[in-house]
């Protein structure tokens, strides 16, 4: 078995595509003007930014003036949630609804707001990682300012019933935000048709640069700023525009949303082969609904082993994978997402996420299916937890 290099962690980040980099390059050393400057070098920069804004808008079914560039998905989430909170607090609405398994960019923001006088309801998810829209309906109160539910989960890839949730929010007159960082480019999105008031996205998940994102804000909705200062982004987000990254995001989102169905048709069968292959190992389980999930995502718990060790072994075999969200891999706690499905801590610790794209070939799939069982066997053979499991003892 020859060693391969397989990048199977596209949910953590993606490489900048050739096409995106080519579009960005002129803006570093040639067309480097400040987009606010009056001279041609500046006007050209501004044109490039506005062209990118049109592309982002088009990809989401929005209007260009509804798109605001931010420095990342996290900033977009923070802005949408804190901005809405500040806006609605003036009307006495200080209740926010979200789910237990949002990304930390949402959860740590709502926790921050809880310390500042807001009340937050955390909707549970089913053992398949799905939210029941009726739970949201029940949670909405007179003083609910915002419902924020992620479009697709970053760890288990489950796709939420966004349109139903949006409909309930509108029926009740509540604003609806969705963190679509993991969804953009993988599922069809039309913010107007779907009734989404705010949507966060991040460039580096779709082959644009890290450090660029966008927030869609439905026209008519005027959020207070998160970052005050110069008049950029029509006065709503200060800071000299990151022209190369913005241009790259425009190209990236156009490419990512061009052929969603075709990509899924290629990726899904490979992903399914991975799922079925790994699930052949005893004491494993697929986390998240099998069908209502992103085409490239699989998340499997492998009992008796610990995730980080698994990842390091995979890395030594040329496979880049993840265990829970990349952002939290420095932390000791198991993923809050996996715990929200009802997994025991020890099981949650031993989980692996693969997020593949078309570049992961059928041969790569074969390779992964050869490598993973060997690693699992090795780690289990040195695991006191596995030892006890085999003896039928409890281990938590």
């Amino acid at each position: 078995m020859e060693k391969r290099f397989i990048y199977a962690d596209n949910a953590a980040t993606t490489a900048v595509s050739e096409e995106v980099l080519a579009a960005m390059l002129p803006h570093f050393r040639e067309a480097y003007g400040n987009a606010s400057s009056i001279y041609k070098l500046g006007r050209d920069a501004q044109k490039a930014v506005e062209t990118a804004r049109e592309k982002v808008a088009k990809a989401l079914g929005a209007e260009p003036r509804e798109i605001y560039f931010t420095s990342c998905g996290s900033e977009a989430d923070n802005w949408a949630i804190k901005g809405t909170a500040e806006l609605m607090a003036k009307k006495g609405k200080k209740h926010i609804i979200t789910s237990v398994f949002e990304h930390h960019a949402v959860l740590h923001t709502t926790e921050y707001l809880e310390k500042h006088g807001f009340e937050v309801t955390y909707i549970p998810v089913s053992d398949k990682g799905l939210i029941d829209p009726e739970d949201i309906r029940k949670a909405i109160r007179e003083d609910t300012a915002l419902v924020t539910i992620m479009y697709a989960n970053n760890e288990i890839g489950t796709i939420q019933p966004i349109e139903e949730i949006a409909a309930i929010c509108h029926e009740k007159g509540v604003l609806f935000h969705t963190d679509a960082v993991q969804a953009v480019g993988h599922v069809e999105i039309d913010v107007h048709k779907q009734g989404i008031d705010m949507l966060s996205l991040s460039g580096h998940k779709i082959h644009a640069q890290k450090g660029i994102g966008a927030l869609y804000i439905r026209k008519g909705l005027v959020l207070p700023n998160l970052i005050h200062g110069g008049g950029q982004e029509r006065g709503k987000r200060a800071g000299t525009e990151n022209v190369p990254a913005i241009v790259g995001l425009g190209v990236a989102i156009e490419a990512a949303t061009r052929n969603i169905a075709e990509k899924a048709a290629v990726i899904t069968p490979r992903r399914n082969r991975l799922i079925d292959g790994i699930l052949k190992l005893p004491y494993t389980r697929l986390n998240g609904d099998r069908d209502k999930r992103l085409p490239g995502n699989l998340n499997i718990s492998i009992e008796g082993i610990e995730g980080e060790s698994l990842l390091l072994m995979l890395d030594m075999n040329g496979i880049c994978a993840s265990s829970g969200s990349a952002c939290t891999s420095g932390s000791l706690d198991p993923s809050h997402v996996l715990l929200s499905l009802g997994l025991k801590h020890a099981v949650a610790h031993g989980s692996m996420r693969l997020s593949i794209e078309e570049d992961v070939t059928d041969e790569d799939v074969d390779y992964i299916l050869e490598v993973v069982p060997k690693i699992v066997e090795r780690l289990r053979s040195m695991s006191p937890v596995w030892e006890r499991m085999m003896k039928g003892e409890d281990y938590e």
Partner: protein
Amino acid sequence: MLYSEKVLDHFSNPRNVGEIEDADGVGEIGNAKCGDIMKMYLKIDDNTITDVKFKTFGCGAAVATSSMATELIKGKSIDDALKLTNQAVVEALDGLPAVKIHCSVLAEQAVRAALSDYYTKQGIDPVPIVGEIKVPEEE
């Protein structure tokens, strides 16, 4: 969070993995909930640790510190083994990321737990010799 080459080496080629069927002392520390369990097996002859094996469920640092700890006490006297500090394990591994220091404490405590078991089996109260076994707090 960056692992040194030494850590990665001890993780990928851990020394002394396994069990000792007729161990003179066995100690286990940690719990699966926190993500780390270390189990140490000692063979002791004439106050000398003639053999040591471990099994670990845990992260790269947990495996590497277990491995390094076994290396550091193998062939040593019980007295020397009792002097093993987590700091010595960390240094021998060329450092550990701050968030992983607790693993080295686990390794130190696992050795003590095994020695504690050894004394208990000998009918000797281990506490005056080995001290209390403490599981490090998660930060």
